[in-house]
């Protein structure tokens, strides 16, 4: 029983943390979030090309490092801790998991090496659970020896800078996934202004996009999409864990310095107890994230029971950690008092990142409902 990071895993954590501490400080984040692309290109190069972070969960056969969801979570956690402006989750979790779970060998060979090498930014459009409201959608239909896609997604992680967009689309015959390179005719992606400026989003429109047969991912069913989303949810939860941790550290540091009523405000029990609750949430969030990542690494998504365990663990992680991150980021503002809600201090960056993390890939309530359906059966219930 080794439910703690191995030395190699600690090394990954420490080196990513060192990179981000050096290159993604407050000034860098503020620069990136106000930029045209919304990402920090230099940082992205360092992460994806020099440190090969996008290669983590990609098998060696496709140019990757052949590591797993635990290592992916480690990197995500550090990214959250530094509110880094990079398309890591979109590329290394959403798109990579889509290709790994749904792609044919040929499709993997075509796309994964570029991602592993840090040359390809990728994302997934239509990363939504069936019960989510207010999302966009796309439809696919056969068209000659290929497919035609139409639709609109108002919010796709980093769509405006992606080289490759995996699109989940529906039709009467079911869900299918398509690999759509940027520049395909009829595809347009535009950056959207968002409340959380550290997680850039694009609006994606597909207007009579024609794709060849080879663009359709071999295994892109609704069930596989659900498996992809469960993995992506765990990675997002890991990022939120980093947000929750950073918010706690920020609040503890500030209240330890700030004096009021003749005392460090950290000496007030109301402050201490709130910080203690924040720490409790961090620790349980950590247990939840790495538990879920271990379940994902052990899961065989072709086995229904195993997939069920993955979905439960993923929903647990997302629901628990989203709420932990939101609680902690909100508490940091509260404990910091007036300066907590100024633009100048960083607390608002974490707060907004916690909110966007909570809203994406299903709210805590949605994931709780998913668990309830698993435990109690999906039932219509009385109002």
């Amino acid at each position, binding site marked *: 029983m080794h439910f703690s990071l191995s030395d190699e895993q600690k090394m990954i954590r420490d080196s990513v943390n060192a990179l981000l501490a050096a290159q993604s400080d407050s000034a860098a984040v503020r620069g990136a979030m106000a930029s045209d692309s919304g990402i920090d290109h230099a940082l992205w190069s360092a992460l994806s090309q020099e440190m090969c972070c996008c290669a983590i969960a990609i098998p060696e056969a496709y140019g990757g490092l052949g590591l797993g969801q635990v290592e992916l979570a480690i990197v995500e956690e550090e990214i959250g801790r530094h509110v880094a402006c990079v398309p890591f989750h979109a590329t290394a979790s959403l798109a990579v998991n889509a290709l790994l779970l749904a792609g044919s060998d040929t499709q993997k060979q075509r796309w994964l090496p570029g991602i592993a090498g840090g040359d390809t930014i990728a994302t997934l459009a239509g990363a939504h659970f069936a019960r989510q409201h207010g999302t966009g959608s796309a439809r696919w239909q056969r068209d000659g020896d290929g497919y035609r896609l139409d639709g609109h997604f108002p919010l796709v992680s980093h769509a405006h800078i992606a080289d490759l967009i995996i699109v989940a689309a529906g039709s009467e015959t079911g869900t299918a996934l398509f690999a759509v390179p940027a520049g395909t005719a009829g595809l347009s992606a535009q950056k959207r202004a968002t409340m959380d400026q550290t997680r850039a989003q694009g609006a994606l429109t597909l207007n009579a996009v024609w794709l060849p047969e080879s663009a359709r991912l071999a295994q892109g069913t609704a069930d596989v999409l659900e498996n992809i989303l469960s993995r992506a949810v765990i990675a997002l939860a890991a990022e939120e864990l980093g947000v929750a941790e950073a918010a706690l550290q920020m609040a503890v540091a500030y209240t330890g310095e700030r004096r009021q009523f003749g005392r460090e405000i950290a000496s007030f029990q109301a402050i201490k107890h709130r910080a203690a609750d924040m720490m409790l949430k961090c620790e349980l969030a950590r247990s939840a994230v790495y538990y879920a990542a271990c379940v994902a690494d052990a899961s065989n998504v072709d086995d229904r029971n195993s997939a069920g365990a993955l979905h439960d663990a993923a929903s647990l992680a997302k629901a628990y950690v989203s709420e932990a991150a939101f609680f902690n980021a909100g508490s940091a503002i*509260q404990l910091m008092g007036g300066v907590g809600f*100024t633009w100048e201090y960083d607390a608002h960056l974490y707060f907004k990142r916690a909110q966007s993390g909570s809203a*994406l890939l299903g709210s805590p309530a949605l994931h709780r409902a998913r668990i309830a359906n698993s435990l109690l059966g999906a039932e219509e219930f009385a109002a």
Partner: protein
Amino acid sequence: MNIHFSPEDEAFRREAAQWLTDNLGGRFAALRFRGGPGDEHRFIDERKAWECHLASGGWTCIGWAPEHGGRGASIAQQVIFAEEYARAGGPGRIGHIGEGLAGPTIAAFGSPAQKARYLPGIVSGKELWCQGYSEPGAGSDLAAVKTRATQDADGHWRISGQKVWTSLAHIANWCFVLARTDPTSHGHHGLGFFLVPMAQDSVTVRPIRQITGSSEFNEVFFDDARASDLLGAPGDGWKIALALLGFERGVSTLGQQMLFRTELDEIIRIARDNGAARQADIRSRIAEAWMGLTVMRANALRMLSEDAGADEQRAALVYKLHWASWHRNLGKLAMDVLGEAAELCPGEENAPYALTRLQSLFLFSRADTIYGGSNQIQRNLIAERGLGMPKEARGR
């Protein structure tokens, strides 16, 4: 006990509603529902004009005594006006610090000459006020005021120091400032309550940019600035500051609640439109929000009841903690009803940071539980004043 207004009060309600309907059009139409919390920095010139127009109709300072230029309106009438003002979409009152805080304080503690000098400008809507209480490093701790007041050779008071979280400082004509008249004093002692003109070189206003990207609050620097008056005697500052807090009986909260109701209505409308209203969690939280707002109004009516006694003072003591927490939760509910779409800002591509009304509610309401006595301070007050529990120990 009843929760109803008298027929005379209802007639007053119709009169107020009619005037507001008739006057919130034309050049003032764009002001409807603007300038509230999180939007206080907008439409300044138009709201200044509106304040004067309101005064011309006799609708400023209605609760003030006639000798001070008011109508001597009853609490019930003030409640009604606040509700109708908000219902009609009356813009955030740019003169509220003068009307609600500075004016009543000057009326209570000022000399006849001071009353004659300051009150008419407030009633007419022409002179705006701001509040100089909080200081950096002493947000909720008024007794830690460090700003100094010294008397120069010809007897004028001079103010030096820094205030912070000052709303409307950049447009106010006057600031009332708590400053230390006795440099050797500590805590509540040796403070004075000064009236300071803002239009002088030795007063500098610097806006503070907030979580919303906008700037409703300011820092104000006094560098040997001249005070035009001292209210009461040197050393009376603490007593006057405390009394001032009592003047705000909370009538304006009824107007605030009307704004809250329009926010809740918008959230319900979106939930019905986008399907969120079919989700169990959202349904329950909308019900909870409605409950919190309904009980908020009942609680406000209780604390403002005409026969208010000890019971109703207890209601007043918990009021801020309730509304601030409720409003903050409403902001989160709004985002959760929107789902992913909560992220989308009005501007296209790389527009400057601009927010929808509900995004602004979500972000700005995080300040509700901090300013005007944070939730922590409120709980201390409730425990100490409401329940007689021991005071917090001060450090050295």
